[in-house]
């Protein structure tokens, strides 16, 4: 061949090329095509396949023989390469004559498969390979290194594949599944449909991956997803007894998960699930909030709420892969019923109080984890400031009575509150902590003095706190027993020597004492309030006093005295004092109260102190407390609204009414301000000359620059 091609006779290469071309053509014309057409059905296809493969081999080897032509003659004359020529020949002589028949036969076969026949997809794949390759330009037949297979390479052109096969295939498949879907939707339950649909999708997807061109996959899936998912999503999820609502009600999480997997392919259809999740969660929550029994005890209420949250968190995580829309729906649902219940913020604070005082007995979770969970609930509150108000109160008690299990845990929570609400809401909490620290330091110095904290035989310990920071304390005036008075005086002397100009006042109502009985057989230790100590000290002088006398000697008002006496007469602890008239609980002024000289008890250490604070109360009392706190809360809120208004107007100089209200609502996240409240504060600001209305547009407010106070500075002239 080389010799012939090299010879300058220009006709030789041409002849060679012609030979090459016609050989292939003739073969196909005379042998391949007739043989193919002589068959039908599957055999037709397999014959075609065989011929195609033969042709590939033929082209390959012929190319190898005539390869010299490829190097010079063909490119010089702008003729197609040998491979391309081979391909073209096949196209013209064979393919274009029979491709329609082939395709129809293929579809017949696929339909048969759907009916249940087994079809050799590997072979079909190869036939379709032909369709894909037939349009190649710059084709060349090469041998694959690894497999030894012959493959066609070149510039891809899927024209035939797409026009002849792909479109029809997708339509057919979609048609088929549409019928299937219609059947399923009628006859199957929701979960059954889901499983069938998922299986179908998987099957077709696998088919495409393994046998068809990768470009087909997205188009096919689009069609299938439409008929299987989009068209039926609503009907499917709404099914009676087996649909989404029932899945939620019966807690069938596996089914929900499968449904989610199916619908997630078409995310816009997921609303069919989460829109039904919301009323479900709300209903669960509402039944909790409406339960009067549960509401009696804040701790039970919050525990149940935490449980519900955990359950829903798990549901959204396991069945719905923490999809954003689902998480949002869950949170909104919780917000709805949590905020409908007026007790939630204060109950949550009570729960925190319980946590901080008792710690986690026997629970696996760490304190931090539980605080995180509680905080998640906190974030869902609308009235966050109601929580902080109650929390501050209870925190104060915990600090004063030193009942916190872990100061770290307290500060952890405080820092989270700070991030969520800003420094102003936690400033008091922080100050209280600092106050305690200062108090400790001061009292440490006191104890290091000669008396070592022990004055006239009484071990004395106290705290020094800043007035106004700790809320109002009920503090009845009381004549202290002399020993106590001595202690107080000594400390006062110490304090005044260090802090000139400052005064201290003693809050006896928060104190407690330990007294030892010396007149009884066993040495009992009594833990009593200061007031009770005052009363009992009197009995060192006499055995019996009337109520009137006790009142005179201690200087206590009736209410306080009665409360503390009642505890000393508590039969459960063994009565330390015996009341004269045992028939009525009321104390008459002339009634005699005698010390119990034959007092006896099982334990040696007895606590007579009245209970300071109880979380569990009848609802009416909760209502009252919330009512009392509400006034304080309203004042605080007005201040915050005012501050926000000034801040916004200072920055913007001018703003319209509606925009101003919207901005205030946007900026405040510790509670939801009512437009009426904001309006009132605007009026206050107008009245106080911070704002004014524009003359022409009454709904436009203008910020009035505030007078600045200059302090005069006098300079001394250097030459004077």
């Amino acid at each position: 061949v080389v010799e012939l091609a090299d010879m300058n006779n220009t006709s030789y290469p041409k002849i060679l090329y012609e030979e090459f071309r016609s050989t292939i053509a003739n073969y196909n014309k005379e042998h391949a095509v007739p043989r193919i057409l002589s068959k039908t059905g599957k055999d037709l296809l397999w014959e075609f396949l065989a011929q195609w493969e033969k042709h590939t081999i033929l082209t390959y080897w012929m190319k190898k023989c005539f390869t010299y032509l490829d190097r010079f003659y063909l490119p010089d004359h702008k003729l197609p390469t040998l491979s391309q020529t081979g391909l073209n020949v096949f196209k013209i002589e064979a393919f274009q004559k029979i491709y329609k028949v082939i395709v129809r036969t293929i579809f017949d076969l696929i339909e048969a498969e759907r009916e249940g026949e087994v079809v050799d997809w590997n072979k079909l794949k190869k036939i379709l390979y032909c369709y894909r390759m037939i349009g190649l330009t710059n084709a060349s037949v090469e041998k694959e290194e690894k497999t030894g297979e012959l493959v066609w390479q070149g510039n891809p052109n899927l024209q035939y594949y797409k026009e002849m096969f792909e479109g029809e295939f997708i339509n057919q498949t979609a048609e088929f599944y549409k019928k299937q879907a219609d059947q399923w939707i009628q006859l199957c339950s929701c979960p059954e449909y889901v499983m069938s649909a998922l299986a179908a999708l998987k099957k077709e997807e696998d088919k495409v991956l393994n046998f068809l061109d990768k470009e087909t996959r997205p188009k096919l899936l689009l069609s299938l997803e439409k008929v299987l998912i989009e068209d039926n999503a609503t009907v499917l999820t709404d099914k009676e007894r087996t649909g989404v609502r029932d899945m939620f009600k019966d807690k069938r999480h596996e089914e929900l998960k499968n449904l989610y997997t199916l619908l997630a392919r078409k995310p816009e259809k997921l609303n069919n699930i989460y829109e039904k999740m919301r009323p479900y969660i709300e209903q669960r929550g509402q039944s909790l909030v409406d339960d009067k029994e549960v509401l009696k005890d804040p701790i039970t209420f919050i525990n149940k709420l935490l449980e519900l949250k955990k359950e829903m968190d798990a549901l959204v995580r396991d069945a719905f892969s923490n999809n954003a829309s689902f998480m949002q729906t869950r949170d909104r649902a919780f917000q709805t019923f949590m905020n409908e219940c007026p007790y939630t913020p204060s109950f949550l604070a009570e729960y925190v109080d319980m946590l901080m005082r008792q710690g986690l007995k026997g629970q696996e979770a760490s304190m931090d984890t539980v605080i995180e969970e509680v905080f998640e609930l906190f974030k869902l509150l609308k009235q966050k400031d109601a929580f902080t108000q109650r929390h501050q109160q209870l925190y104060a008690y915990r600090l004063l009575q030193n009942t916190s299990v872990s100061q770290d845990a307290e500060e952890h929570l405080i820092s989270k509150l700070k991030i969520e609400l800003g420094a102003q809401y936690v400033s008091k909490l922080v100050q209280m902590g600092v106050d305690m620290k200062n108090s400790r330091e001061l009292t440490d110095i006191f104890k290091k003095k000669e008396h070592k904290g022990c004055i006239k035989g009484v071990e004395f310990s106290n705290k020094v706190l800043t007035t106004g920071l700790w809320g109002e304390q009920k503090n009845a005036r009381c004549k202290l027993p002399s020993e106590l008075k001595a202690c107080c005086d000594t400390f006062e002397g110490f304090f005044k020597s260090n802090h000139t100009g400052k005064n201290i006042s003693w809050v006896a109502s928060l104190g407690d004492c330990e007294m030892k009985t010396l007149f009884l057989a066993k040495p009992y230790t009594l833990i009593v309030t200061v007031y009770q100590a005052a009363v009992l000290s009197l009995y060192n002088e006499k055995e019996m006093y009337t109520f009137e006398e006790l009142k005179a000697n201690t200087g206590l008002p009736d209410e306080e005295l009665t409360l503390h006496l009642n505890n000393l007469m508590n039969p459960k602890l063994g009565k330390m004092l015996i009341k004269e008239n045992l028939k009525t609980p009321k104390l008459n002024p002339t009634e005699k109260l005698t010390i119990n000289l034959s007092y006896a008890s099982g334990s040696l250490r007895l606590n007579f102190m009245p209970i300071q604070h109880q979380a569990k109360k009848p609802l009416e009392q909760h209502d009252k407390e919330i009512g009392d706190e509400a006034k304080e809360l309203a004042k605080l809120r007005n201040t915050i609204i005012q501050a926000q208004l000034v801040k916004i107007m200072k920055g913007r100089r001018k703003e319209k009414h509606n925009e101003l209200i919207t901005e205030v609502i946007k900026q405040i996240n510790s509670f939801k301000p009512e437009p009426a409240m904001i309006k009132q504060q605007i009026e206050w600001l107008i009245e106080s000359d911070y704002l004014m209305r524009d003359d022409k547009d009454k709904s436009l407010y203008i910020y009035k620059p505030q007078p600045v106070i200059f302090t005069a500075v006098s300079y001394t002239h250097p030459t004077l």
Partner: protein
Amino acid sequence: GINAEYMGIIMKKKEMKKSGSTKVGEYGYALYEKFTTAEVITGEDFQKVTDDLGLNMTTDVEVLVFLYCCESTTYGEIKKEELVNYCKKLNVTNETNWKASVKQLKDIATGGNSEEFKKFHTFVFKYHMLKPGQKTLEIDSAIVLLQLVLEKQHPISTKFIAFLKATGKKALGRDSWDNLLEVLPMIEKGGYDVSGAWPSIFDEFNSWFEKNCKGKERSQTMNTSLFPL
């Protein structure tokens, strides 16, 4: 020498004033001397002024208009310059049109929705705030002023006064007073926007009005239609 000349010039000027010169407002100086020799017109002298105009000092709204035209800046007093302002504004140049100026006062007071009336209305409140330590108008005074200034022009003021009494309001603020002229007609006709920027007292009045007054008006119209003339 020089002093005498100087005094002579001053005497001449005084005489010119007394003869009623036509310079705008100048008559005010002469007028002032008619009523008092003191620094300001106040107390009894004030009564002289109102009597001179044929007005009742305590019950005539025209007295307030008078003060408005003076641009009075101190409660209960009229300064010399303020009387001059009055004469400038109402073109008073002699005794005749001084007495006749009462009619102009009446016109302003019954001005309804005119610009002048609006300014007068705003002045009334400001004037009562000139008393030391005043920030809002105590409700009884407010009601008196409303009756005096607004009632004849805007009958709905009567309802507003009833509302103030019924809801036990203690005082009326400047912002509320200033906006009365605009808001009251809106409430009457029913075009009041509760979500608007109006002072919240009007939100309250609006709902009170709808509850207590609208029904009655409807029933009134029904009555008249039942008895055709």
